[in-house]
């Protein structure tokens, strides 16, 4: 209960911080929407010249991209604090985090959500809802599975970020590691099936960005088998378990910098 209360306070503080700079807020908000809009335009024109791309219609490709952005934004919003972890470690500020009677992992993962992304999420939710209603027409069971897979994606994303900050303690270079994660995820702005082997399996099962970003959309389109759904759920739990183990292992290697 205490953990939830303190985390809520972190959220409120971040929100206050975000809205205290309206110019920055609107600059980032507009730029992000512009980025999505321009890539959607590209997919639209690409789809207008070609009937099927790797077996997918233009509408399906656009839907994959919308779901990708939704998940990407959701994950970035919650785990923004990870991007600030390096300065905490190299400055020795992490000592203060460890000293407090609050789980350091929760502090490092959820201590500074980015509510600029919340604004983007509202827009994306509206666009996806429109798209679902007019182009996809999902059944209630596929909607349920979609939310289940979305939850699983958040678990895998949490595990991924735990892995990154744990590596950050050992190597002291989180900045580029987290950006490598971001670039890896941006590979699956298109369905993972468009990649050839062995890259397809690599980004689905080894570095599971395909599983995280493509599977929820596939579930909604009815393109994912139940075996893969079960595999994904097991994968999520096992991945989280090993990430937590690695986090505890890495903590033993932490040595305070500065004074």
């Amino acid at each position: 209960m205490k953990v939830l209360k303190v985390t809520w306070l972190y959220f409120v503080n971040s929100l206050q911080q975000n809205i205290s700079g309206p110019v920055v807020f609107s600059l980032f908000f507009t730029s992000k929407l512009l980025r999505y809009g321009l890539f959607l335009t590209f997919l639209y024109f690409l789809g207008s010249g070609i009937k099927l791309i790797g077996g997918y219609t233009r509408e399906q490709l656009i839907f994959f991209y919308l779901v990708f952005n939704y998940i990407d934004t959701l994950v970035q919003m919650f785990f923004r604090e990870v991007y600030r972890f390096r300065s905490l470690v190299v400055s020795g500020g992490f000592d203060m985090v460890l000293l407090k009677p609050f789980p350091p992992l929760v502090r490092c993962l959820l201590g500074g959500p980015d509510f600029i992304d919340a604004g983007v999420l509202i827009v994306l939710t509206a666009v996806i809802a429109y798209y679902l209603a007019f182009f996809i027409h999902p059944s209630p069971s596929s909607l349920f599975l979609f939310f289940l897979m979305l939850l699983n994606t958040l678990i895998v994303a949490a595990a991924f970020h735990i892995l990154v900050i744990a590596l950050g303690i050992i190597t002291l270079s989180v900045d580029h590691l987290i950006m490598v994660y971001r670039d890896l995820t941006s590979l699956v702005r298109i369905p993972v099936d468009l990649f050839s082997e062995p890259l397809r399996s690599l980004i689905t099962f080894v570095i599971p960005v395909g599983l995280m970003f493509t599977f929820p959309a596939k579930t909604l389109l009815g393109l994912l088998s139940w075996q893969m759904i079960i595999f994904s759920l097991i994968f999520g739990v096992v991945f989280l378990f090993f990430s937590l183990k690695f986090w505890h292992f890495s903590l033993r290697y932490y040595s305070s910098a500065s004074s």
Partner: protein
Amino acid sequence: MRKYLTVFAIDWQNQFIYRLNFVLWRFRNILRVLMTYFLWSTIFSVQTSVFGYTREQIMAYLLLVIFLYGFVGSSPSNDNIGGEVSSGALNNFLTKPIGYLRYWFTRDLSSKLLNVIFAVGEIFLLWLIFRPPLVFSSQPAVILIGILMLVSAVIIFYLLGKLALASVFWAPENTWGFMFVVLVLMEMLTGLIFPLDILPRSAFTALQFTPFPYLLYFPLAAFIGRLSPLEAVRLLFQSLVWLGILFYLVKRVWSAGYKVYSASGG
């Protein structure tokens, strides 16, 4: 001139301190192109020509994008200038006989050289792995104009970044926001992800009135033989016009910024 050569040499050595960071940065550049590569490969597996592009032209375009992006886009000044001005570290430069913006341009050039060396290796490696068919312009004059456009692109990108960063003098808290806008436009409107001429004619023409297509797309179009010599000359001229406009703006805005600049503390 000699002091800038020394800055170049020192920065060159500095870049080898954080080797892991550099390797990861280069790895990221390859990842950025892989998505586009596979998207186009899938498209060309069932078609021989798309939007007037042959498979050979698209593959050459994608490989050259890695090279050009490493050359034009690597600009450590964009990550550092805002912080230096807002923290007051700019004082150190104002008291020295060195131009601040020239100093950072020199450091950018050093970073570009290292990036280009690695980009050549990466392109060769990717070519070995995927063995894509490639085609380049057969007209040496157009390639030469493409090289000039590339030089102009490097300066345009530097000036664009500095124009956005100049906001630090008046609103330090918004600086990164303005820079983010430039980077998003750089990602989407320069041809990094797709050749711009697949857009409708009106959108493509409108884009020529912005500095963005001159950063990657037009030099690339010259290299892969999409431009006639006459078109190439016209586009080089347009690129130089943008260079002139941005140079003038940066000069005016930065000199106004220096006048309002103040730093406290020790």
